[in-house]
Each structure stands twice: as C-alpha cells, then as structure tokens.
C-alpha cells in the first residue's frame, strides 16, 4: 500500500505491506536504525518517536496509519555535529550504559517536556487544576513508559532536569 510519511523533515514515499509497523518502516525500509525494537509490544519504550510532535510507541502503530504525518526519530532530533540539548545532557550526566534504550528515552523526554509545558497532568500531580511543577516525582512518573535495563534512572532524571531547569 502506497504511503507517504515526512520523516525528519523529508517526504518519504513507501509501498508497504499493511502489516508493517511504523517502527519497521523506519528501521527496515528507511534504514533509520536509531529507533530500537525492544519488546515490540509497547511495554519498553525503546521505539518511542514523535509523530506530529507527540511521543508514541512506533511498534504499536501501523505505518499506513501515518500517511501524511510528520515523524521525528532520534536521527532528526540531532546528530554528532548538532546535538540536541537533551542529547548533550544525557552525555554530560552519563545517562546510559549500553545505550539501547537511549534513543527512545531521549525522544520520550523531548515529547514529555512539551506535554508538561502544556500543563498536562500525570498520576504524580497533586493539584489537577493548578500549574504543574515538574518535580523529580513528576519526571519519574511521566517517563515510566521507558525502561532502562541498565537502570541508569538517576542519571536520566538528572539529564532531563538539566534541560527542564529547576522547579519553579
């Protein structure tokens, strides 16, 4: 089935089996191997990408559902010559060991900060009607869809804190 997806700013036309997940389209058809296949069931978050600016599990979405959408993968977040502040913060805080979950962690963190900036609530929000302060408890809860097998969680929180700034 013919599908056109704008990936990292570039329109890409593909002819896909309807079963192809967005993740497999990115990795196997567009050779963007940054997004990782961990569980392939939406439980680990390694496949997280931004679709129209919103973070989702690319393993649990069909590529054909995204005809006309804009997808940003870790390759579009930044590269060696132009690191995104979140990538820089992960390096500075040593927020990974094996690195397998890292692209998903970074895409998720970028999407999460946008959600928090729009004052979206989370399970950790004490007051649902006021302005939400992005405490460490909030960051932990909001990043709970990203698993790190190396358990670099304290450093991941520190990296996201570096980008988010101090709690107001």
């Amino acid at each position: 089935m013919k599908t056109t997806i704008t990936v990292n700013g570039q329109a890409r036309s593909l002819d896909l089996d309807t079963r192809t997940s967005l993740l497999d389209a990115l990795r196997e058809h567009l050779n963007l191997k940054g997004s990782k296949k961990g569980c392939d069931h939406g439980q680990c978050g390694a496949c997280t990408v931004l679709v129209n600016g919103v973070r989702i599990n690319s393993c649990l979405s069909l590529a054909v559902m995204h005809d006309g959408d804009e997808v940003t993968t870790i390759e579009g977040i930044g590269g060696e010559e132009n690191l995104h502040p979140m990538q820089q913060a992960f390096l500075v805080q040593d927020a990974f060991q094996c690195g397998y979950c890292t692209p998903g962690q970074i895409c998720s963190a970028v999407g999460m900060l946008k959600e928090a900036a729009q004052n979206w609530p989370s399970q950790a929000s004490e007051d649902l009607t006021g302005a939400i302060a992005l405490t460490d408890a909030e960051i932990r809860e909001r990043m709970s869809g990203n698993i790190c097998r190396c358990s670099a969680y304290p450093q991941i929180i520190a990296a996201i804190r570096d980008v988010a700034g101090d709690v107001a």
Partner: protein
Amino acid sequence: MRPFTYERPTDVAAAVKAVAATPGAKFLAGGTNLLDLMKLDIEQPTHLVDVNRLPLSGIEDTPEGGLRIGAMVTNSHLAADARVRQRYSVLTQAIVSGGSGQLRNKATTGGNLLQRTRCAYFYDPSKPCNKRHPGSGCSAIDGLNRNSAIFGASDACIATHPSDMAVALTALGAQLETMTADGATRTLAVADLHRLPGDTPEIETNLASGELITAVVLSPAPAGGQVYRKARDRAAYAGGLASVAVVGQQVAFGAVAHKPWRAERTEGALKSGAGAVEAAHAELAGAQDNGKNGFKIALVARMTADALRQASEGRGA
C-alpha cells in the same frame, strides 16, 4: 501477524458501512491494544477500517451543562482538558493512572472502552480460554487467578475488564452515542456497554456487529468529592489489581469483574445513612474468592472506605 486489507474512510457512516459489509472486519482506533493482540495472533481481523481521521476528536459543552467527548479524543487530551479537570476530576485521575504517556497519546476514548482483558490465559494461545476458543475451557478458574474477577464471574470465564477510564465513566453515570450499521444512532449507558461473561464470554459488549461508538456524554457531575484509587504491583505503568471510583455517593469498582462494577449496594447503604466502612462492606459481602484473588475483597473494602472518606472531605470536588 496475519495479512489484512486496510482502508481509512473520512466519514462515520462510510466507516460503519465498511465494517458491516466485510466479514472479519474491525475498527482500528489508536491500535495500542488491537495491534498488540494481532501480533500475538489472538485478534485475527481480515480487514481494518481506520477511524483515526473521522471527525470525532472534539470535546463540546452540552446545553445541559455536561460534556460530549468525541470517541477519537485521545486519553491524553481528555485527561488534560481544563473542563474535565475542573468538573470531572475522577476521569482525569483514572486516565492518568493507566498505561504510559506514549500509550495515552495514541489510545482513544472509544478504544479504551473496548480494550480486552489482560487475563494471562487469554494472552497465552497454548492454554484453553473460552474467550479465544469458545468451549475450550477456562484455565484461570483453577489456575493463577490472582487478577481474576470477584464479582459476576461464571463457570466459563473469570476475566476482568482492564480499563481505568471506564470505571470513572461508570461512577459518573456516563452515556454513549453510537452509530449502527444501518446508519441509525442510539444512546446507551456506559454501565450497559459491557456484559457479564455467562456462557458466552467471547461476546463482551452489547454493541451490534459494525456498531461504532461515536461519543461519550457526561451529565453535570453530582455534588461532592471525586476520587479514583488504584492498587497495583508497582508504582507506575501497571494494570490495576483493583480500583475504586467515587463521585459524590456514586461508586464503581475496576479490575474486579468482566465489566466496570457499579457498587449499587454500597450506594444503597450510603443512602440509608451507613458510614464509609459499613457501606464498603455492603457490596463486598457479595464478592467471591476463587483461590488466589481473595485478597481483592479486603483490598477493595479498605480502598472504598478510604475513597469515600476522602470524597466526603471534598477531595476532587
């Protein structure tokens, strides 16, 4: 995953017609549950009708002072809506307690209601399951049934409905709007959407073949506090062992039955002037212990009493 054909209509009537016209067809909304089950070969649709781009993503005020929530509103947008947070905080509390941020960004209002049980035997095609293969037997009844139902189960099935959102909607007395295959519309209560398993646990809802949920309608919330409490095995991103939604003196339980469970005996006891603990026990007196899930009875009783106390103190009002 088995092969399937795919289409993406742009109006509701065409979508309903497409599913009704094609044997083995299913609606595809966020896909976070359906695609997962297709990968496991538990769901086997031959045709998918993608409803993501139907014009059902708005949240409107109703003339009665309530809200009409389009079926394609994502869980994230619904939980974040200022009107929902102000007037229906139990709904926001319930939604943000389920899934992860990524899942809530895809999951929809209609799809959340129609998600399927997380019973481990339903997910394991090597084991008998009357939902997957009617007549094959229930592996959970004498198996690892810690997560199973304590209300309304049958000899054929003791699975639970996993939604948090649906529990809040049940406590709120929400209504659904649907379109049937012939293009007609109807309304039914969220409480009447899901069925108890009986002898046909494979039939989970009272929707007709090809019937599409188009909206959820909330009346003005009753006076009083609103509280959603959920117990689970880890602090984040886990299904509930049990949950309780309290809206004023309206009470529903989650993860304890094949459907969100309206606690009518608890509500009746409250009306008769019973205290929180006594009212909680009024419903739990009818609960059934299947061997490994008996802990839910004491758990729900305590959570209910506590949620009632918090609501009476004005939390979430």
